[in-house]
């Protein structure tokens, strides 16, 4: 996040002093403290306010969730320790597998579609004139700042079978046969909800890729052109490989967003119809706050957290940033 500030802070120091600053930083790294460091407890005055509030209201609940997941608890009676029984039960739970399967399908809409659309749009937009590019960039990014819960409510109306604009449009252009009850249809509900996620993320992906493309040395494209490369060839052989760091980041953020998905699906379908859009977080909500099976629900939540960590690790290991080129 600090990349923008990096530039502004560097700009503050005139070029002549920059090497001095660098050496000062190097010495600072050898000794742990800086010139502002003091011995004694004074340092803790800066650390503790934030740390304590974090510990009490975030970290303790995280640890407690681990503990609760090892118990049988209805929220009222004393929790009964049952060891790993919730997890054992979970791995034999058909609905949990349905939820995981749905989540896997959602990944197509949360990651693959926005990534491909975003990278193609970025390739086009990078050639558009500055002014038009800024307008389009502002436009494409707009959904990303919206509350997904409210977007879910808006799209539920847009998809409404009786008076929703989407079906009215289909009827108006002669595609009345396709005017389905989107969110009530077992086959189409998942793509219908997924399309909203794609709509939400593609602009963000586009902007990230656009930023990455500005880093590519334009002379590479000129050289390729001189060598007779077609536009699609320079896209696949220059643009795409250079964007690997951005692709990694976009994958990371969108895969995690899909595992965490709750707001959008909750407001659009509540996981229905049937289990057609059930995902682990919705299942966790149903188990905990509707069926009062808090221990079991916590186990679902912990598996979700483990998946997030696994994705982080997998993407980090599989797509290790290449230090040489960066």
């Amino acid at each position, binding site marked *: 996040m600090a990349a923008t500030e990096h530039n502004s802070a560097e700009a503050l120091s005139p070029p002549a002093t920059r090497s001095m600053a660098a050496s000062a930083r190097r010495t600072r790294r050898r000794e742990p403290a800086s010139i502002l460091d003091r011995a004694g407890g004074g340092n803790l005055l800066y650390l503790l306010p934030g740390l304590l509030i974090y510990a009490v209201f975030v970290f303790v609940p995280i640890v407690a969730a681990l503990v609760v997941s090892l118990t049988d608890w209805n929220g009222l009676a004393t929790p009964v320790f049952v060891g790993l029984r919730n997890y054992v039960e979970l791995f034999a739970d058909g609905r949990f597998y349905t939820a995981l399967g749905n989540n896997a399908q959602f990944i197509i809409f949360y990651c693959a579609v926005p990534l491909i659309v975003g990278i193609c749009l970025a390739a086009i937009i990078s050639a558009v004139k500055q002014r038009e590019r800024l307008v389009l960039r502002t436009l494409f990014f707009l959904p990303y*700042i919206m509350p997904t819960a409210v977007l879910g409510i808006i799209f539920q109306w847009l998809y409404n079978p009786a008076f929703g604009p989407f079906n009215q449009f289909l009827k108006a252009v002669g595609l009345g046969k396709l005017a389905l009850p989107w969110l009530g249809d077992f086959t189409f509900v998942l793509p219908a909800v997924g399309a909203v996620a794609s709509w939400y993320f593609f602009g963000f992906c586009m*902007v990230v890729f656009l930023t990455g493309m500005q880093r590519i040395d334009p002379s590479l494209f000129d050289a390729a052109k001189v060598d007779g490369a077609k536009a699609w060839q320079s896209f696949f052989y220059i643009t795409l490989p250079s964007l690997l760091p951005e692709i990694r980041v976009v994958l990371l953020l969108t895969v995690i967003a899909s595992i965490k998905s709750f707001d959008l699906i909750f407001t659009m379908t509540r996981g229905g119809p049937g289990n057609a859009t059930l995902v682990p977080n919705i299942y966790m909500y149903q188990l905990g706050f509707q069926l009062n099976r808090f221990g079991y629900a916590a186990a679902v939540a912990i598996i979700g957290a483990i998946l*997030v960590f696994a994705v982080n690790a997998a993407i980090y290991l599989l797509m290790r940033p290449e230090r040489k080129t960066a």
Partner: protein
Amino acid sequence: MAARSSALSGPALPFRVVLWIFGFITIVPFGLLLLTSIKSKPDLLKGAFVLPAYPHFENYLNAWVDGHFSTYFMNSVLVVVPVVLVSTVLGLLTGFAFAYLSFPLKRTIFILLTIGMMVPTEAFIIPLYYEMLYLNLINTYWVLVIVQIAMSVPFSTLFMASAMQQIPGEILEAAVLDGAQRPQVLRRVIVPLLLPAVSTLALFLFIWTWNEFLLPLILVNDDSLRTLPIGMLFFQGKYTINTPVLTAGAVIVIAPLVVVYLIFQRKFIEGLTAGATK
């Protein structure tokens, strides 16, 4: 496609058409939302894309008064303002500690903070609910404010610390040699230098808090304490049929976001994508 970036001409027309089609897809839901929010119910029956005879701004009044959006809006503001202020200050303090000071278990504490940034809220919402029940904080403003602040500590800290590490050491040395105490260095030297970073952080905190859904859904069930996204959800449950008022409510929720976004869009886009590409 990209090869043309260095050429004088822009992309071929079909490509630009594709671009604007996607732009259109992005804006259409918002356009329909605005259009429907000024229709009457009879207007709505004439078709989703038909303009109303005259604008029915009373939908906004209905949402604001009968739909309790005035309360929800007020609650959102009452939660967002303290969260942004306190989280920014805490981020500066904790970030200062991580950037410049030594303290025991620094690495371990750093890792614990990172864990808090990665674990989804859903994973610990159940124990959090019971902790708040035990502390008698369920159904209060406090619970929304405190938990949101606590959840923003890891990001604010890392964001501020990495910004502070970019400040040239000799500036701080000069300040210390001039006899400034640490609080003064932080307030008079570091904060002014980091104003761009601080305001970016404040923007993020504003948008995250304004959009937060799960926390108020679980931790508050009194209608008079609901924030906008939750209020919207329950309003939808009650008035499913009254689409014009529902859409007017949605406009009330997103209008402040759009205004802030349009004013600060460079900061938003560059801040968010810089974080992504770091």
